[in-house]
């Protein structure tokens, strides 16, 4: 790890703008950013953008309990290949991360991984939505994001107590999976024109809206922080926009799939397109895109959710929800929003790195690229096109909705704490 190298010939992009510069790294620190820098080891940055390492607020790594789908190691490798230097693992493992002991176990496994692995903790014991989990003990263990993700905390009283209790834990945030369980029970796709035609029980968009509306009210009343996971409806985005204008302490993330795919994809009957919250119609996709562009949606998060083929290769209704995301997220956003001229790369850096690092309280990530900062970087060829081949992904699972799609933007190198963990698109460990 104690080495010196230079990323040569790239254009550095962070919140301070874009400039042509080499980046000299020694040990785990950026020591100099400037032109004509030299070092014994060089990484080729020509034709590339050098970005702060990406931060994923929302990744299901499945360990412990479902190592047949993903492990912390394989998930972290997928993350590194996707340009991520940090991620927050979701707590819906078996057993769930609802105690400091299990959080410590996950963090321990993450220490060897080629990505900085953090874990979220459950809000309630067993993620059952009834009794508060020991949030303080998990906070002491380093947990900052609390969520029952996969499940919505439906009980208003429990949610109120969680938000209030977390006020005493500096940097802690309560994150909600916004789908009213009573309204989505038995549903497998967005309720609307397509579900009606296909005869598939639906999960209505207003199931998200009612929870977002309620939790905004709870955040306003308590003064606490709430983060909305994978926001997916235009109405929910608009409510968050108004709440933020009012000063309510809410943040939101959106996934690449909700920014780019519609519920029409379910007509293929391919369970790769089954996800919760479900893919929505064009009007919602537009609303989420607008929210991401104007900052109402703070962050892009993957909701990377691996499932083994034997579980996904079933009839639509019987397959579990979820799709892979870590290796494709940046490319999807570059393809859909940057290459089309809707978003610039500085905004990409804010949504993929600065904002998620701030929301999760990760002080070594989401930093500007300048001397003295931690060397967590990714180097991206934004013009490279590639076709997604599920078999070629580093994730243990294959359930990508982007199979066969041509995407623009490919990660060339990823630098984690000064160590090149991905070089020329290949994972080093």
């Amino acid at each position: 790890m104690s080495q010196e190298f230079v990323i040569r010939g790239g254009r550095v992009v962070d919140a301070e703008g874009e400039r042509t510069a080499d980046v000299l790294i020694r040990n785990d620190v950026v020591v100099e950013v400037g032109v004509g820098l030299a070092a014994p080891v060089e990484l080729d940055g020509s034709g590339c953008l050098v970005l702060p390492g990406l931060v994923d607020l929302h990744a299901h790594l499945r360990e412990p309990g479902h190592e047949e789908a993903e492990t912390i190691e394989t998930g972290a490798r997928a993350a590194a290949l996707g340009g991520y230097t940090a991620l927050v693992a979701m707590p819906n493992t078996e057993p769930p991360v609802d105690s400091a002991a299990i959080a410590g176990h996950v963090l321990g496994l993450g220490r060897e991984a080629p990505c900085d692995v953090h874990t979220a903790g459950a809000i309630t014991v067993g993620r059952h939505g009834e009794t508060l989990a020991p949030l303080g003990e998990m906070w002491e263990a380093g947990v900052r994001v609390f969520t029952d993700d996969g499940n919505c905390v439906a009980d208003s009283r429990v949610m109120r107590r969680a938000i209030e209790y977390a006020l005493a834990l500096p940097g802690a945030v309560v994150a909600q999976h916004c789908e009213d369980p009573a309204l989505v029970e038995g549903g497998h796709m967005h309720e609307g024109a397509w579900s009606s035609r296909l005869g598939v029980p639906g999960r209505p968009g207003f199931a998200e809206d009612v929870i977002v509306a309620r939790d905004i009210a709870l955040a306003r009343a308590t003064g606490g922080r709430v983060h909305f996971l994978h926001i997916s409806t235009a109405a929910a985005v608009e409510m968050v926009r108004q709440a933020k204008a009012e000063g309510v302490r809410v943040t939101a993330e959106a996934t690449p799939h909700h920014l780019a795919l519609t519920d029409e994809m379910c007509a293929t009957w391919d369970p790769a397109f089954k996800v919760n919250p479900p893919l929505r119609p064009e009007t919602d996709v537009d609303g989420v895109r607008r929210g991401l562009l104007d900052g109402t949606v703070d962050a892009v998060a993957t909701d990377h959710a691996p499932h083994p083929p034997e579980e996904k290769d079933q009839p639509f209704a019987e397959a579990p929800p979820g799709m892979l995301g870590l290796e494709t997220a940046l490319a999807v956003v570059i393809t859909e929003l940057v290459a089309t001229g809707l978003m610039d790369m500085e905004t990409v850096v804010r949504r993929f790195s600065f904002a998620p690092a701030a929301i999760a309280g990760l002080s070594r990530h989401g930093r500007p690229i300048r001397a003295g900062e931690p060397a967590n970087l990714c180097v991206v060829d934004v013009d490279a096109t590639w076709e997604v081949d599920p078999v070629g992904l580093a994730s243990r699972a294959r359930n990508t909705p982007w199979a066969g799609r041509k995407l623009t933007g490919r990660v060339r190198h990823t630098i984690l704490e000064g160590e090149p963990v991905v070089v020329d698109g290949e994972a080093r460990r």
Partner: protein
Amino acid sequence: MKHLLGIADLDRTELDGLLDTASHFLEVTQREIAKVPALRGRTVASVFYEDSTRTRLSFEGAAKRLSADTLTFSMSTSSVSKGESLRDTAKTIEAMGVDAMVVRHSSAGAPHRVANWVEASVINAGDGGHEHPTQALVDAFTLRNHRGPSIDGVHVGIVGDIRHSRVARSNVLALTMLGARVTLIAPPTLLPPSLDGWPVSAVSNLDDVLGDLDVVYLLRIQRERVGGRGPGELFPTLREYTARFGLTAERAARLRPDVLVMHPGPMNRGVEIAHEAADGPASLVTEQVANGVAVRMAVLYRLLGAGGEE
């Protein structure tokens, strides 16, 4: 045609072709020796993940009258109870040498998945709340025989749980493709959440449109939709349903004499249909069943016989 997965995949020419072929086979089924050698040496497997008597018997009868061999797979006696996946089951059945698989499954789209996994032709015999194409062909065929050759402009009212009904979805597509006018009649909770793109109108009061209908098509009411327990509840009581949407003896008596009454079966007598209507002269219920064999012969023949793309 390689598969019959839904009416949504058919065009008008294919639909007319199937109905014309069914007319020919209806004549065959009425012969003294009601059997032709068209599919001798071919094997048709029925793969039923849901209980069914009439559809399965109808398909197997159709296959036998075409001299095809039949295999039957039913969930209760199968390795599904041992945890085998649909994909493995489909591959296993195909490996036994079948040319067509007739698939019924409680999950919408399951036959479409099977069609991706196997080389055999796949016929959808009902997938969840999605489609039941052969039922719609039977109904269109039956209606055509009474009002045909064209059913253009015939006003069909489909009454009942449209929301969960694969029969309704396939019939809306088939009947409107043939030019019929379709009105859906149900309480709002039993209508699909969206009718965007459906070439139909919808009302929630049967008596408002009853006098304007040429055909009253009643759907079976599933008892688990009733009552206030759990997410299935969509209307308060069977009695209230019958009073507002049932074809009661009183409503049947008000129908014009030329109005036809249809039901895909099995019927809940006294709920969606009174026995006076089910057994009355306007009822086509038995004829629908009788036509089922001829229509399914036509489907098998088109997919596997000289009418197919073999």
